């Protein structure tokens, strides 16, 4: 295909904003008199943070939905351009703040791809544990929040209790429950603590029954089924067209999982199934999440069984801070520590994109490096942002009461969407 440049006419920002504003105000139909515009959010219990939906209602039926985002915009991508690669790790905690560990891992893997590093097997196994535990934690939250949105608050508390147990594990591993900041480019801040594996095993053993309890409260409950079945149906084609990812894509019956399609870490060594749905409605997305948790448990058990020994970090002493004991006593190490801290990584120029299968979907980092310790441009492909893009198509035709169900089943996090 010959490469041709196409001229795109972009109106200046002022005109664009004015046009968007006018489009918001413009009556969509002639019979606007019968319709009511309902502003849902940015602070509304069902919008999981600060999503704003401008709903046009005909009675209780939605005729038009316009999502309005950006209430949690922090300019993370711009911030990244002004700090070293490792300094940005705490900022990744705050993307999908329900799965900070897997954000850390995805970011570290992205920068490592730029550095052309491969971390040792034990490091990979630890990262797999991070990813899967945070997947369980995120799905527990998603599941609980969806139930909460449909009025079943108790399920939310039950999943929260389980999540707390995971947070104890995270605390043991990273020293923090929520903002883990666990990985660094080329490894992680510390090896698995002594009691971590037994505690993880204990969690995995206890987790099944608890999950079954939630399952029993909801899955075959007709009230719940009525609220979710055939609500918010996303067809395969639309799911692909809107570039959905994660459980929302698989709920529509598309077998796409980056852990399978482009195995990173050592996911190809573990045996697990990609869970897909068939109808693409809220119910399917709910079922997929429950089953994915079971698959994560399966992966975790395998990781525990196969856990290799050895180092956890890349052995590049020019780019990694040396161990503290040597920094305190040896000249070369002290110098390298100083230079690595003040100048950051010696990253090569170039650009990379790396995506990981995060609980919410494909979390991608595009890094454009001009060399040195600071990225020239860092773009985050946030799954929640992309997943939410289908809302204007998905919501019309639903009732107001279906909005929480649909939003709950999409399981998004505004921290990531607005970043």
């Amino acid at each position, binding site marked *: 295909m010959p490469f041709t440049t196409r001229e795109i006419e972009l109106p200046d920002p002022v005109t664009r904003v004015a046009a968007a504003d006018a489009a918001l105000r413009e009556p969509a139909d002639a019979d606007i008199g019968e319709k009511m515009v309902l*502003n849902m959010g940015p602070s509304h219990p069902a919008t999981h943070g600060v999503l704003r939906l401008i709903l046009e209602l005909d009675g209780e039926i939605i005729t038009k939905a316009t999502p309005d985002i950006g209430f949690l915009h922090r300019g993370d991508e711009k911030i990244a351009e002004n700090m070293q690669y490792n300094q940005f790790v705490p900022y990744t905690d705050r993307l999908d703040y329900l799965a900070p560990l897997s954000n850390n891992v995805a970011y570290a893997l992205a920068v490592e791809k730029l550095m052309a590093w491969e971390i040792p097997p034990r490091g990979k196994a630890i990262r797999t544990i991070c990813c899967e535990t945070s997947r369980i934690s995120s799905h527990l939250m998603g599941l609980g929040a969806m139930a909460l949105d449909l009025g079943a608050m108790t399920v939310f508390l039950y999943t929260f209790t389980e999540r707390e147990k995971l947070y104890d594990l995270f605390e043991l591993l990273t020293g923090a429950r929520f903002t883990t900041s666990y990985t660094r480019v080329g490894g992680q801040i510390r090896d698995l603590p002594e009691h971590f594996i037994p505690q993880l095993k204990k969690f995995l053993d206890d987790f099944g029954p608890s999950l079954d309890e939630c399952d029993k409260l909801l899955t075959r409950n007709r*009230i719940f089924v009525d609220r979710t079945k055939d609500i918010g149906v996303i067809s395969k084609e639309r799911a692909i067209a809107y570039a959905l990812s994660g459980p929302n894509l698989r709920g529509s019956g598309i077998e796409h999982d980056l852990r399978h399609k482009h195995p990173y870490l050592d996911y190809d060594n573990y045996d697990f199934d990609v869970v897909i749905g068939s109808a693409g409605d809220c119910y399917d997305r709910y079922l997929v999440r429950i089953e994915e948790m079971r698959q994560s448990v399966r992966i975790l058990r395998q990781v525990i069984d196969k856990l290799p020994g050895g180092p956890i970090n890349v052995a590049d002493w020019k780019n990694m801070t040396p161990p503290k004991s040597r920094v305190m006593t040896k000249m070369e190490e002290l110098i390298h520590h100083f230079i690595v801290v003040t100048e950051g990584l010696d990253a090569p120029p170039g650009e990379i994109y790396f995506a990981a299968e995060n609980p919410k979907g494909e979390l991608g980092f595009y890094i454009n490096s001009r060399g040195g310790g600071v990225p020239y441009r860092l773009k985050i492909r946030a799954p929640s942002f992309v997943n939410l893009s289908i809302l204007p198509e998905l919501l019309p035709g639903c009732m*107001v009461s279906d909005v929480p169900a649909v939003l709950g089943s999409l399981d998004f996090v505004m921290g990531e969407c607005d970043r």
Partner: protein
Amino acid sequence: MDFAFVVTSLLKIVGILVVILTMVSYAVYAERRVSAFIQDRLGPNRVGPAGLFQPIADMFKLLLKEDFTPRSANTFYYWLAPCLAVMPAIITIAVVPFGSTLFGVPMVIADVNVGILFVFAIASLGVYGIVIGGWASNSKYPFLGGIRSSAQMLSYELSLGLAVIPVFLLVGNLRLTSVVRYQIEHGWFIAPFVGDWTNPWKWLLAIPMIISFLVFMIAIFAETNRLPFDLPEAEQELAGGYNIEYSSMKFALYFLGEYAAMITGSAVIVTLFLGGWHFPGIPDGSHGWIFGLINIAVFFAKVAALIFIFMWVRWTLPRFRYDQLMRLGWLFFFEIALVNIFLVAAILPYTSRL
């Protein structure tokens, strides 16, 4: 007018008001504790022993909060609505017999001959509080809540009315004291065969009576806006519905109204189906004032048990959708209640045989 009658009536009114208001505030506390226990939490346990002073703290908190009236609200109706929400719920209790007799005085404030109709009539006024509140707030979420509430209450009032007809077919009287007296003689309406074990017709009668009980109870759930029927305030959809724009004591009145409605609803259920103040083996107040007190205690114990069920259900189930709720009310409960009446009517002629 008889002076003694006035005095005893006043005493009863004051007494029941104190009890009901205390129960309401402790129902809020109980709700929080029960929900907490169901959810593996502890609930309020800091204010006073086991958190028992929490309602007082809540009251002070709500009293001291800023009482905010939105500028666009219709002020008069905005202020009126919370009062309308509380009043009917409390007035209803006037005709409910909450005990047998104490020192020869019947433990019912007004034993009118159309007792149950009175209950329905006053309860049906309860919807005004919500509808007016939703309308007067001049805001979209309360408005949606108000509309939902008016439709929902109307729909379930039908089932409510139809569900009690079997009771009155049996009793032949709308007076609530007669209902209780009938149950003392013939067994509670959820088990109307007591005392007449050998009559299979009466056993058969139990089936429609239990259906009646269930329909009535579910309708009361709907009437009191309790989950799974709490659509007018649906936290996750309407973010609180009709009471969004209310704060401070006005919000507290709504809260009070909801719990008062729940208590009077339970009291009516107890009276209609669970034998009122009667408990097998405990004689009534004519055998001594101590038994009169015990009768009252039994009544409130039953009410408390029902309230627990209210809470238990609330913290277990998800919420219906608006159209599902309406369909359920009109296509399911309405029909069932109707069929149930015919069923009872068909069985009734045979019960007195044998």
